[in-house]
């Protein structure tokens, strides 16, 4: 097991910069997710660590050893591919044994290790089958087996759960997390699914356009997003982001959304005014931090119900506020239907404000009440 350090990593494909000057320090034994939309460069980073791509600039260290110029076999990493890349002409046993077989280990040792690996992954009874005769979940375990049998310094997993069906994916998530703990291994996995990243990883690197937007624990990423991209990417549904401007009129501070005025609590308004350079900003609030009412209440804001999505244990309501739409998570007994009026108010202590131009966070209500949740 080893730590992994990327130092100013840049990778270009022709004129496209897939990875731009990325620096990342992954601790020994840590479970890290590279999360981002497709084409953000996350797989390219993984392939650079594996040695399948040569970076144009920057260095990669595994442990304290610089591996930037080493070929894949000399890096002591193992990789699980999205398609699993099992060898179709070999049995599950031979697939798992392959890395040891290449290293010309004695037959008895191979048999012993494959047996042990199969026990950990609970695939002992399928060892004689070929990949064509295995289900998706079993193939995934065989691919994991082939990766763990060598006991490498780092595990790299490229979308390891993407090819599983929805139900299996949820159980595989837990299994993979347990496996990582059990092996105490440094694991880096790539995913575009933020739930997968949040549930499994200790730390998440959120990527966009070849750069890491934020690297932190699940809590940090969720509670203190560094910018609009991260806040809009994390959470189901993601944070509502509403363009607005801040005005001070007659001693009270309000947000102007289109033509509507939304009064802001004084303490937050004052703090905000001190920090901003321009009055144009983006107001962010998560669906669970908006309360919705059937009747008008003081300090609430009138909206129209755009759509209601019942989820069994709660309802997801989309409301129209001028030209913007916001999602609200609410209780099941919320009665209003499409087209009817509803009144919302915001938990200002959990509101976020972003610079409209740079997307960077200006401040968030949590600065004052971090221990609320």
């Amino acid at each position: 097991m080893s730590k992994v350090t990327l130092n100013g990593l840049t990778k270009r494909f022709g004129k496209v910069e897939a990875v731009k000057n990325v620096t990342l320090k992954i601790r020994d034994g840590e479970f890290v997710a590279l999360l981002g939309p497709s084409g953000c460069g996350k797989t390219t980073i993984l392939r650079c660590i594996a040695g399948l791509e040569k970076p144009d600039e920057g260095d990669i260290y595994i442990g304290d050893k610089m591996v930037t110029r080493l070929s894949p076999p000399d890096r002591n990493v193992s990789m699980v591919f999205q398609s699993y890349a099992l060898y179709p002409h070999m049995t599950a046993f031979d697939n798992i044994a392959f890395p040891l077989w290449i290293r010309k280990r004695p037959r008895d040792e191979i048999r012993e290790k494959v047996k042990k690996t199969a026990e950990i992954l609970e695939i002992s009874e399928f060892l004689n089958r070929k990949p064509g005769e295995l289900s998706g979940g079993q193939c995934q375990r065989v691919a994991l087996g082939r990766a763990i049998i060598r006991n490498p310094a780092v595990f790299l997993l490229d979308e390891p759960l993407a090819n599983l069906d929805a139900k299996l994916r949820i159980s595989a998530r837990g299994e993979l997390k347990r496996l990582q703990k059990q092996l105490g291994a440094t694991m880096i996995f790539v995913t575009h699914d933020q739930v997968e990243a949040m549930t499994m990883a200790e730390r998440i690197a959120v990527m966009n356009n070849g750069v890491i937007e934020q690297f932190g624990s699940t809590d940090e990423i969720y509670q203190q997003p560094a910018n609009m991209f991260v806040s809009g990417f994390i959470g189901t549904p993601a944070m509502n982001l509403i363009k607005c401007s801040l005005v001070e009129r007659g001693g009270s501070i309000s947000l102007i959304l289109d033509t509507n005025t939304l009064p802001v609590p004084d303490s937050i308004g004052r703090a905000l005014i001190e920090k901003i350079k321009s009055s144009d900003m983006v107001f962010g609030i998560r669906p669970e931090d908006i309360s919705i009412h059937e009747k008008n209440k003081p300090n609430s804001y009138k909206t129209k119900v755009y759509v209601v999505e019942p989820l069994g244990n709660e309802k997801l309501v989309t409301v129209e506020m001028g030209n913007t739409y916001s999602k609200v998570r609410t209780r099941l007994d919320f009665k209003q239907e499409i087209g009817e009026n509803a009144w919302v108010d915001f938990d200002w202590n959990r509101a976020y404000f972003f610079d409209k131009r740079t997307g960077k966070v200006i401040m968030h209500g949590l600065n004052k009440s971090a221990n609320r949740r």
Partner: protein
Amino acid sequence: MVIIRRFILYFILIIFALFMLFPIYSMVTTAFKTMPEIVGSRLTPPTQLYLGAFKEAFDSIGRPLLNSVIITVPSALIGTFLGSITGYVFSKFRFWGSDALFILIVLGMYIPAQAVLLPVVKFSANVGIFNTYLGLILPMIAFSIPSATLFFRNFYMNVPTEMIESARVDGCGIPGIYRRIILPLSGITFAVSVMINFTWIWNSFLWGLVLTQGPAVQPVMVAVNNLHGTYVAMWNVQMAGSLMAALPMVVIYAYFGKYITRGVLAQRK
């Protein structure tokens, strides 16, 4: 209406089939006739099974038949093997000039034999392999590499690159990946390519004609042509010889034809 259309279609197909089948009919019947019988009526079936022509033909082409086997088998196998290696490299690895090199190799398919006839004969005489088995095997291998390369490259393009990369990360080198992953996956493609090479090398008349002298090394296609006598045309002997020369190909296709179909279909996927 449908029946009439069918009728016309089958009528046309049968005419084309007759064009193909008639020479074969003529070859088989003539081979079993005696010379006077042939002179009497060319197209009637033989009245008795006369095997003398086969014996006479075999006396002349027995050795060349063996020569053809000695030349064709290793050329077809080695040509296919080399083609699969180059096909593997061109399908899975990019290196400086790889595209240009690939085009150059494939261009080899379009060079007519006549264009390089003299240089090859001259070269073969200069290095002292003229009129030897090696003198025929080497050019046959060289000429089978381009099509085999293209054939295998197209097949290997469908082998997932992730599989190759996985083997690389697991510690396998480029030759190891070929031996342990690529080669075991290409069974049918291999068989098809060997057969295609076998066919054209076995049937190649021109190269046998210009690169050999006399029956010691001469392949069967040249020997069959020589059965045609100088003063009298011994039609039955010539047809018996042709039949024997064509037989190995017929047998191979009868046995392995389904693999060819399957292999070609697999390429299309």
